């Protein structure tokens, strides 16, 4: 079982230093561009500005405008041209500036990016990474806080991953760039600036696997991206009340790591999934259904979903009422008969 929450520094690595998720992503992009001449980065404001979240900071100056450049402001255009570039042997990494701004690219992503390899019977590979800062918690005005993961996970052909900490941010982005499948890389924007000590370069668990961040025996909390911290907080608080909480960072939403999750649920007999996105038809529904179908006879209680409400993401002054909190998680666990 891989524990990436406290990564062990390899003997040869540089000494660890505090680094944020944004900084780790920046380092991953830098190292990938350096390592492979076919890697290019483009999107809105990713050039001299370094992106609105500064994830591409310094890359255009370092590698030049033929490797990192500002595109016109059009998301379908960004993804559509990335597809053409990948057809010609490049490995484009593109940025959708905010989650809700990826919707103009929906057709290019779902009808072409996800289907080209299948349509061409394997002749055309599209090694493209679409980076999407997602979810809320930053006081963003409307359209800046969506959790749109279910749109992508519902689309066969896409691989959807999301890191929750700096070490994973580096390792998973490098793996995503090296992958021959198209990857939707969701970056939890409220966690961009949370720092941890990491020695780069770092390799954590494989991108498509879930990891147990904290071991426990009473309940399994399944979280990803921004809600991993929420789950860890709930585990801390639960421990004070004598509850032994296991926390799993799903990391990969598609594919889903049935093995790691199943092993945990068979041990604890109880599971809850936490996400910011609205509940109805959300990713948690898939998680609850899978766990129920596969682990039904081990379950002592129905799988719970602690999620955002079924409403559009609220305005900045009201978002605190929307986001799942550790208290809300524990309150939900209290609804079970123990």
């Amino acid at each position: 079982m891989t524990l990436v929450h406290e990564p062990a520094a390899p003997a040869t690595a540089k000494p660890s230093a505090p680094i944020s998720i944004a900084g780790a992503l920046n380092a991953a992009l830098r190292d990938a561009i350096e390592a492979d001449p076919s890697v290019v980065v483009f999107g809105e404001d990713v050039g001299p500005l370094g992106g609105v979240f500064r994830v591409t900071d310094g890359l255009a100056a370092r590698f030049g405008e033929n490797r990192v450049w500002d595109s016109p402001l059009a998301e379908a255009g960004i993804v559509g041209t990335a597809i053409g570039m990948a057809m010609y042997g490049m490995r484009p990494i593109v940025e959708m500036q905010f989650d809700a701004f990826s919707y103009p690219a929906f057709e290019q992503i779902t009808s072409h990016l996800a289907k080209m390899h299948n349509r061409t019977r394997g002749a055309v590979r599209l090694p493209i990474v679409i980076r999407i800062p997602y979810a809320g918690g930053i006081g963003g005005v409307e359209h800046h806080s969506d959790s749109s993961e279910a749109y992508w996970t519902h689309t066969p052909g896409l691989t959807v991953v999301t890191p929750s900490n700096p070490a994973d941010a580096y390792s998973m982005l490098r793996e995503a760039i090296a992958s021959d499948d198209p990857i939707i890389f969701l970056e939890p924007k409220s966690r961009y600036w949370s720092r941890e000590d990491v020695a780069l370069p770092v390799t954590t668990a494989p991108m498509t696997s879930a990891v147990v961040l904290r071991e426990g025996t009473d309940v399994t909390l399944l979280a990803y991206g921004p809600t991993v911290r929420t789950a860890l907080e709930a585990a801390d608080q639960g421990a004070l009340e004598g509850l032994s909480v296991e926390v799993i960072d799903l990391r990969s939403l598609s594919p889903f790591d049935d093995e790691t999750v199943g092993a945990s649920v068979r041990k604890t007999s109880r599971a809850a999934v936490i996400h910011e996105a609205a509940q109805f038809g959300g990713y948690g529904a898939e998680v609850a259904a899978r766990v129920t179908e596969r682990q039904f006879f081990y379950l002592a209680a129905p799988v719970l979903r602690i999620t955002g409400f079924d409403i559009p993401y609220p305005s900045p002054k009201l978002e605190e009422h929307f986001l799942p909190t550790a208290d809300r998680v524990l309150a939900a666990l209290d609804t079970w008969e123990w």
Partner: protein
Amino acid sequence: MSDSVVGSQLPVRPTEKPICLIAADGKRTSPDLAAGFELPASDILLSLYRRMVLGRRFDVQVTAVTRQGRLATYPSAVGQEACEIGAVAALGDDDWLFPTYRDTMAVMTRGVAPADALRQFRGDWHMGFDPYEHRISVQATPLATQALHAVGLATAAKLKGDNVVALTFLGDGSTSEGDAHEAFNFAAVWQAPVVFVIQNNQYAISVPITKQSHARTLADKAIGYGMPGYYVDGNDVAAMYTVISAAVVNAREGRGPALIEGLTYRVEAHTNSDDPTRYRDRDEEDAWAALDPIARLERHLRGTGDLTEQLSAEIANEAETLAANVREAVNAETELDPLEIFDHVYVIPRETLAEQRDYLARELASAEQESDR
């Protein structure tokens, strides 16, 4: 060709009237309609003529077998041969073609075997050939989306220093789509070696061009993007070939993209399930029939004496052989492996798909046992 057109670094504005080199009566047009472009040599014209005759025979045959239920559907390009053939003839081997669903004639003309070109419409698979073998992308069904792929591929080639040009077809209806606008804009901003060929065949299924655009011409849209635009008689293959060739040369030599509108007409229905009598009249169809691209070049080549009876008979024979190939291709039974539907979804295999593949395999095996009983 005059320097004012080829080799110019200045955007060229669309002409007042469509550029035309050979009129409907087969005669050469006046210099103002030629707009500085010169008529191709007779061997090129003969080659274009031959390919148009073959292209039409192919399309007519495919439409016929579709009516017999051999294909799931087929969007015909009859009447649009000058655009289809003129564009393909202007491309080099290393260049790329990004066709739409209506451009099977162009796909076949660029060298894809009829059986492979028709696999998509037979319903065997979504695409019937390897894009890298012929440098032809998938025939796009979602409108204008392929234009962005062309811009991306051309940009990648430019970044790698390869002299590759990407040509994408578009229809008049698809110019209303956002992806068309984004493709024109990205291509111009990035000075990508792309040639956009809009086949304005007057209809998007049933909706006429007048309900699609209020612009004087679709070629005029090029002005707004800062690229050359050419308004061309799309039923004159000499003009289409010559203008597209000039645009391809310009793109290849680093002078950026161009947008070409060919005025033409969709002679057949949108597909076999469409009924044009509900939205257009016979007079209109007759008027366009008089402008037919093959008949006009035939008149011209007979007038010049380049098309002899013997050559004409040879081409006709070749066309019948092609038609027989089409019939054979669509009548041949193809062996499809149902389990293959799982095999290309991802490069990296997925456990859940392996489970579902096993499920289908068991279902197929038990169905076979059932039928053996």
